[in-house]
């Protein structure tokens, strides 16, 4: 409990402790801690950025998806329209073709009828002539009466 040179010893000893601590102990520990702090801050930062990027990408993807959907719908609609148009066109063409066929058939029929009528007329004139020959019992001068017969045939 006496006051003595231990006092001076302690001052010197403590000064040495502080010097060693300040030179060799404190700086590396503090440096490491600060470096870690920076690393963690950077890590958190990049995580934030990544989350934001993800959000953005999601947004973008959604937008593209909805656009694609819209486009698909438009294409589908167009295709439908085109199909309807094609069907309509085909219908018109078919009708025209049908009409044409019907018309040509009609014309054929008309022609056949006319031909048949012509034939019939000729046949009638022949038959009439033959009948008349038979009735008259004599030969009829075909040339002489043909004019009359033609007139008759035309009336039929």
């Amino acid at each position, binding site marked *: *409990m*006496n*006051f*003595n*040179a*231990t*006092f*001076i*010893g*302690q*001052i010197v*000893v*403590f*000064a040495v*402790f*502080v010097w*060693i*601590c*300040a030179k*060799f*102990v*404190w*700086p*590396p*520990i*503090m*440096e*490491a*801690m600060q*470096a*870690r702090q*920076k*690393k963690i801050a950077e890590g958190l930062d990049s995580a934030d950025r990544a989350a934001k990027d993800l959000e953005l990408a999601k947004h973008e993807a959604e937008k593209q998806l909805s656009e694609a959907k819209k486009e698909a719908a438009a294409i589908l609609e167009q295709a439908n329209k085109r199909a309807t148009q094609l069907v309509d066109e085909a219908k018109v063409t078919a009708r025209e073709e049908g009409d044409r066929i019907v018309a040509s058939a009609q014309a054929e029929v008309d022609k056949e009828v006319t031909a048949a009528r012509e034939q019939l007329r000729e046949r009638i004139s022949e038959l009439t002539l033959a009948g008349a020959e038979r009735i008259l019992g004599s030969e009829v001068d075909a040339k002489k009466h043909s004019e009359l017969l033609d007139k008759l045939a035309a009336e039929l």
Partner: protein
Amino acid sequence: MASSEGGYANAGEYIQHHLTNLTYGKLEAGSHLCDGSTTSEAVWKVAQCHEEVEHMGFWAIHLDSMIWSIGLGAVFLLLFGMVARKAHAGVPTGIQNFVETIVEFVDTQVRDIFHGRNPWIAPIALTVFVWVFLSNLMDIIPVDLIPYSLELLGVKYHKIVPSTDPNITLGTATFVFFLMIYYSFKVKGMGFIKELSFTPFNHWAFVPFNLFLELVGLLAKPFSLGLRLFGNLYAAEMIFILIALMFGGGIFIAVFGGALQLAWAIFHIMVIPLQAFIFMVLTIVYLSQAHEDH
């Protein structure tokens, strides 16, 4: 150990023995020695009784206080130095975690109190805190364990708690005081003298009065710093010694003493870091004041 079987005549002798440091110093010619003889010439020796210690005066040194002080400082520096050498910014483990927690704690205190830019303040605070803490921690070791073991080996006196030696606590406080004076002059130059002369009364006529007031205030800082730590630890040590006396008083008193010892040790666990913390905070505050212009 405390009764006559332990080699002590009475409780008073036991207490005095436990409060005497292992002192090495010079005995002048004509001093009385413990065995009753008188030296014919001056001798350097380790004091063997209280009387010799008294004769040695100022130029003597407490070997036990110095050894434990240096030893505990070495423990601190080796432990923290080991971590510092391998410190890395990766994931910290084990001892690095522990050391970094303390460093972080001290750094926070320094940042809160000290607003200047001085890279020395934080290491000073760390050294003060850990060293005082370790010194105080020695108080938890049962008072007789190491001294009695050493006494069997022939070492007469031994005190293992450096912070119960006023030389040690005042020495540490004086080191802080030197730093205060150094930084006061470094930062304020002659403004420091002016500050001492013209506060609290800003008038020429009051300069001597101001100087007296301020110097007393200035000197009171290291004294209160050192004596606070000494007083707390010395009182605690004293109570441990008094409790240890009960171990020689029969089985019932010994058991009761054991319970008291446990209770006081548990209470003391609170005092140990608290005193270390107070010493550190006051050191930072004083050094902060030295840096600030008023």
